[in-house]
């Protein structure tokens, strides 16, 4: 079993392993034809598997060990990223990175949640789970962006806000609430992209946006499938069932009118073709930034207000 692949990806992993082994052979002429066959076989197989993914499988893809993290994109999507640190009060939370960047020649304020890939990185970034100082740093940068009329772009990728003792002591709730409050009328355009996992309030705290985008195999939910299952079924192992109930995938959320657009992923998911994924994200952001900056700020704020007040389904 290849640990870089999920269980339902294993047949693809086997084929890819064979292709890898063949490509290590020096005599390219003899194997060219077989390589071709194997590659097209792999593509067909991937297409087949990915044409009928369950919501739980998509949830696993959203947290795939090889899925790109925020910092994997930053260098390719933006030019001249200048990182800004700290909340000016307590600490610099590594789970949220932010700073000034250029997109297509236009300066923007970038803020993103960073999970990290290796164990060492994951520990450094606290698995992408921000503490209050992370949210307060994000807010500081957003207010800075507002002051100098820079559009804000945020990347969401977090299991949730960190549930620790210190985080509670320093007001995790207040930090999240304050961001929602300020973002709801922040006088500059906000674009958010869920690149992997949008974990509840911890995600929303940098995700009150004019344009809400999701990568195809990312998820966005009020509670993790595991959390939901352990409450409703008293068994976190029923996460696969909970994932189906929560309607947390990009296609469900687009249909329900809760997000604005979806970026289709390369065949087999972002991790199968990272370069293509970066290009897709960059192109989408360029287009959306152009759209949103062409609208007067008063109109943007009015639209944002109407959108936020319109969230919810009820009967009279």
């Amino acid at each position, binding site marked *: 079993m290849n640990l870089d692949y999920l269980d339902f990806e294993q047949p693809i992993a086997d084929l890819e392993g064979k292709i890898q082994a063949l490509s290590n052979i020096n005599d390219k002429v003899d194997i060219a034809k077989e390589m071709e066959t194997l590659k097209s076989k792999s593509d067909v197989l991937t297409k087949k598997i990915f044409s009928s993914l369950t919501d739980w499988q998509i949830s696993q893809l959203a947290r795939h060990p090889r899925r790109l993290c925020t910092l994997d994109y930053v260098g390719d999507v933006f030019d001249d990223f200048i990182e800004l640190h700290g909340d000016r009060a307590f600490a610099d939370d590594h789970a949220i990175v932010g700073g000034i960047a250029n997109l297509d020649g236009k300066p923007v304020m970038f803020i993103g949640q960073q999970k990290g890939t290796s164990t060492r990185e994951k520990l450094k970034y606290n698995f992408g789970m921000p503490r209050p100082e992370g949210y307060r740093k994000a807010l500081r940068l957003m207010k800075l962006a507002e002051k100098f009329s820079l559009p804000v772009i945020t990347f969401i990728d977090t299991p949730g*806000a960190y*549930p620790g003792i210190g985080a509670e002591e320093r007001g995790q*709730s207040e930090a999240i*609430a*304050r961001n929602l409050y300020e973002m709801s009328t922040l006088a500059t355009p906000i674009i958010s992209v869920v690149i992997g996992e949008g974990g*509840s309030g911890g995600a929303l705290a940098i995700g009150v946006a004019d344009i809400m985008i999701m990568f195809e195999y990312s998820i966005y939910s009020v509670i993790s499938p595991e959390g939901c299952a352990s409450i409703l079924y008293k068994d976190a192992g029923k996460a696969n069932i909970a994932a189906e109930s*929560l309607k947390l995938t990009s296609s469900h959320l687009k249909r329900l009118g809760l997000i604005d657009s979806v970026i289709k992923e390369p065949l087999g998911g972002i991790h199968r073709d990272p370069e293509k994924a970066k290009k897709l994200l960059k192109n989408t952001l360029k287009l959306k930034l152009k759209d949103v900056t062409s609208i007067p700020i008063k109109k943007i704020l009015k639209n944002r207000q109407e959108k936020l007040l319109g*969230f*919810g*389904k009820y009967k009279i």
Partner: protein
Amino acid sequence: MSWLEKILPSITSVVKKNIPEGLWSKCPKCETTLYEEELKQRFYVCPQCDYHMRISARDRINSFLDPKGRVEIAKDLEAADPLKFKDQKRYKDRYSAAQKTTNEKEALIVKKGTINGMKVVVAAFEFRFMGGSMGSVVGEKFVRATQESIKTKAPLICFSASGGARMQEGLFSLMQMAKTSLAVKLLADNKIPFVSILTDPTMGGVSASFAMLGDIHIAEPNALIGFAGPRVVEQTVGEELPEGFQRSEFLLEKGAIDMIVHRSELTNKVHKILSALCSN
């Protein structure tokens, strides 16, 4: 054994046999048996140990507002089940069961009225209604409360008691956090005071939105208030939680709330604060 101790057990057992259902209840903290009618008059605060028991939204509002001139707002809103959510039970069934046991339509009740003659709007959570969870209706009702406040220039007071967002409405529930936070911002832009009263328990998505956005934060004694539940925190950090973690007294110490106020003094305290805030 004295003669008194000898006869005591038999006396208590005799008393127990003769109690009609619902006339007596027990304090969850000091376990004193209490007369329900007296308890109600004391707003469900134990006369022995001062323990603040959970209280229904209606009792809460009734004990807080002046008796005359109360009008309920948006009382007919009901959930629409946009996800057709189902776990072991259907959301629809859980919902009607909650309506039946609480005799309420939803987990938030909003009324306008007066306190000591001052015009106010009050919202109160019904914790017994699916753990006071916030779905589309709770969010919408809170927004209507803020709109009523702005329209009538009446301060808003909200009594929170909630486990957080209602997972049966998925991301619709999460978005209520953004929606209600905007509503508080609009209230602030209109310079209408918002007093957030945190009662046991105020957690998750409710605590991480409007409940923590008050001009004034008041907590009842010993209420559990926080973002993540204590069990989740304990599991995450793998150590025992400090004494009184996430309780009102802890939050006061950490600077998250302005004060802790006894239930019987709430109306007068809030009235005094609002009189000062609205004096100009």
